C-alpha cells in the first residue's frame, strides 16, 4: 500500500470509526462509569457510590435468577442452533426437487424481526386458540395444553423455542454455505473406499465445517446473550420474572424501577459475562483448529 492510498484509507475509515466510537464505544464507557453511581436518568445527576452497586448485585436474587435464565438460554440456544442448523442444512443439501423453494421457505424466519417473531409465537402459544394447544388437543393431549407464556415452568423455554425458530434458519444458511466447501474429491474417495455415511460425516464433513461451526457458535452465543426484544414482546420477563434475562433485567431496573445507576451495574456484569463466554469460545475454536 502506498502512503497516499494509506491516507485515503484512513480518511474513509475515519467516518465509520467516528460514528462507532460516538454511538457505541462512548456510551458503553459512560455506562461503565454510571455503574459506580446513583445516576438519575431524568436529572442527569450521578453521585459516585463506589462499589455499593456491585455489593448489591451479588446479593440480588433477581440478578442471579436472570443470570441463570441467561445461561440456560445460551446453552440451549447453542445446542439447538448448531445441531438444528446442521441437520437441516444436511437434509436440504440432499434435496433433488424444489431445492431453492424449500431453502427459501426455511430461511423465511430470518426475514422477520425478532419482534414480529415474538408476536407470531405469542399467538401460537395462546391457551384458547393457539396453534400449539390446538394440535395438542387434536392429538388427545388435552392435559398438556397450557398458557405457555404464563406458565412459570414453561415460559422461558417457550420463548427460547420461538427464538430458536429464527436462529436455526441463520445457522442453516451458514452450514449450507460451508457444505459447498466440503472437498468433493474427498467425498468421492470415501465413497469409493466403502466408507459409510457415519464415517463420511465424522471424517470429512464435520472437520470441513469447522470454520462454519465456529461462525454458528459465535452468532448463537452473541444473539442469546443479548436477548431482549423477543422476551419483552412475549412475556415482559414474566410471569413474575421467570423468563427474565439479564438484558431484560437491565431494562426493567432502568425504566420500571428507575434505578439507572444499578441498571448500568448489571450492564457491566453482562459485559464481563459476555467477554468470558465469547472469549472462551474463540480460544476453544483456535485450539481446535490447531
Amino acid at each position, binding site marked *: 500500500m502506498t502512503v497516499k492510498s494509506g491516507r485515503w484509507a484512513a480518511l474513509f475509515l475515519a*467516518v465509520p470509526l467516528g460514528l462507532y466510537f460516538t454511538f457505541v464505544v462512548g456510551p458503553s464507557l459512560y455506562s461503565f462509569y454510571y455503574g459506580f453511581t446513583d445516576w*438519575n*436518568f*431524568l*436529572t*442527569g445527576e450521578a453521585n459516585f457510590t463506589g462499589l455499593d452497586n456491585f455489593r448489591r448485585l451479588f446479593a440480588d436474587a433477581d440478578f442471579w435468577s436472570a443470570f441463570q435464565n441467561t445461561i440456560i438460554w445460551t446453552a440451549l440456544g447453542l445446542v439447538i442452533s448448531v445441531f438444528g442448523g446442521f441437520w437441516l442444512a444436511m437434509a436440504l443439501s440432499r434435496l433433488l426437487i424444489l431445492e431453492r423453494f424449500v431453502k427459501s421457505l426455511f430461511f423465511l424466519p430470518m426475514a422477520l424481526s425478532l419482534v414480529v417473531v415474538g408476536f407470531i409465537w405469542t399467538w401460537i402459544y*395462546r*391457551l*384458547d386458540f393457539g396453534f400449539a394447544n390446538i394440535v395438542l388437543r387434536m392429538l388427545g393431549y388435552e392435559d398438556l395444553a*397450557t*398458557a*405457555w*407464556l*404464563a*406458565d*412459570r415452568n414453561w415460559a422461558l423455554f417457550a420463548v427460547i423455542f420461538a427464538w430458536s425458530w429464527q436462529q436455526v434458519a441463520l445457522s442453516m444458511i451458514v452450514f449450507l454455505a460451508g457444505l459447498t466447501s466440503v472437498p468433493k474429491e474427498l467425498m468421492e474417495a470415501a465413497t469409493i473406499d466403502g466408507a459409510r455415511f457415519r464415517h463420511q460425516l465424522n471424517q470429512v464433513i464435520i472437520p470441513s465445517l469447522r470454520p462454519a461451526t465456529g461462525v454458528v457458535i459465535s452468532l448463537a452465543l452473541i444473539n442469546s446473550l443479548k436477548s431482549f426484544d423477543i422476551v419483552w414482546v412475549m412475556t*415482559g420477563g*414474566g*410471569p*413474575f*420474572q421467570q423468563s427474565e434475562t439479564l438484558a431484560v433485567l437491565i431494562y*426493567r431496573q432502568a*425504566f*420500571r*424501577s*428507575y*434505578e439507572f445507576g444499578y441498571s448500568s451495574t448489571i450492564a457491566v456484569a453482562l459485559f464481563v459475562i459476555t467477554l468470558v463466554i465469547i472469549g472462551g469460545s474463540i480460544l476453544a475454536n483456535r485450539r481446535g483448529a490447531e
Partner: protein
Amino acid sequence: MSMVAKKRARTLILAGVGLSAVMILGACASGSTETASSHVVAEHYFSGDLGAQAFAEIWPLCEQQTGITMDNPTIDHEAFKDAILVQLAGGNAPDLFSYWAGARTQSLIDNGQLDPIDDMWSAAGLDAAIPASIADSAATYGGSKYLLPFVYHYAGMFFNPAVLEEAGITEIPTDWDGLMSMAETLKAQGITPFALGSTDRWPAQFWFDYLILRTAGPEYRAALMSGEASYDDPEVVAALELWKEAIDAGYFNTSPNGSGWTDAADQVARGEAAMTLMGTWITGYWDGNGLVAGTDYDFFPFPQINSDVALASVGPVDGWVMPSGAKNQAGAKQVLECLASPEAQKVMALLQGAIAANSNTDLSSQNAVMQKAAKQVADSEAFVFNYDLATPPAVAEVGLNMFVEFIDNPSDIAGILSSTATKAAAAF
C-alpha cells in the same frame, strides 16, 4: 486508470462525502419555517381501543378553537411509560403530553420535569369547572397545579345481565358472602363467575385494591401506598386470604395470567363468564364491538366486606401535563384550555367510556351505565387512584409482580408477601 480519470474520481468522491455531510447536518437542524406559537406537539397514550377514535375528533376541534396546528404522535399505552422518560431525559419532550395523575406525576415533579399550569388554570376558570375532590387529588402537587384532569374512570364489577338472568340470579350482591354465593350459583351452571386477564399485570390490581379498601379501609391503604405500612401486615394477609378463597373455589377463568383484559371482556360478552372487575373504558371497548349498554352489559359496585370502613371507589385520572422547557409553552397552554373544555371532554367521555373531569360537560347523551358510574363516583365516600398510580412507580413494579405471582400460586401467601415486603421497602 489515467491521472485525469483518477483526479475526476477523487473529486466525485469528495463531493459525495461533502454532500452527505451537508445532508446529515441539514437533517439535524430544525427545518420548520412556521412560527413557534402556531405549532404544538402533543403526545399521548390513548392508542387503539383506548381512545384513537376520540382523538380523531378532538384534535381537529382544538385546531379550530386555537388556530394552532397539532402534531400528535400516539404511542402504545404501555410503551408510553418508558418512551416519555427517554424523551424527557434527552431534552426532546413534546410541548405537552398525557399522563396519569398520582404517584407517576409526583415522580416527574420531584425530578423537576414538569412546569406548573396555575396561570392557565386560573385563566380558564377551572376552579369552578373541575370538582374540588378531583382538583385536589389529581391536579394539585405541593400547592401548585401541574396536571389538567381530562377524564377519569371508575373500576366496577361489569357483568352480562343475560348470564345472570339465565342463572336465575335476581339480586345484586351487596356483601362478600353474597358475591361468593352468586359465584357458586354461576359455577354450578358451568359459567365462569369472574373473568380476569392479567397478562399485562395491571388488571389484577383492582382486586387487590378493593379487597384492601373494603377490609382495612382507605386510611390503611394510603399508608401502604406511601410505605408507612408493610406488605406483610395482617391487613394485607387478610385481603389475600379472601382472594385465595375465590381462586381456590374455582371462581376465576383458567390461567388469568395467560389472557389480556380484552380477552376477559370478550368472555363476559360471549356469556362464557359472568363478570369482570375492570375500569369503565371496558364500555368503550364493548360499544365498539356493538354491545348495548344496559342490555348486554351493566355493572355493580364491589360489595362491602367490613361495614366499619368507608366505601371508596377506585379509578385512574388521565390528564395532561406540560414538561419543563417545552418549546411552545404559550401554544401548549392554549391547547390545554381546549382539552379542559366541555366540548373536548364530551367527545372523549362518550367514545371512550370515561367520566369527564369538567363538571359542565353535557353527558346527558351518555349511556345509562356510564351515567350510573359517574353517580357512583359522585356518591362515594372516597375516590382513590388504582394501585399502580397510587404508589411510586418502583414500588408499583414490585406490587404488580406480586399480584400475578399470587394468582399463579395463591397457597404461598406468607412467602410471597414476605418477599414483596422486602422488595417494596427497598424500592421506597
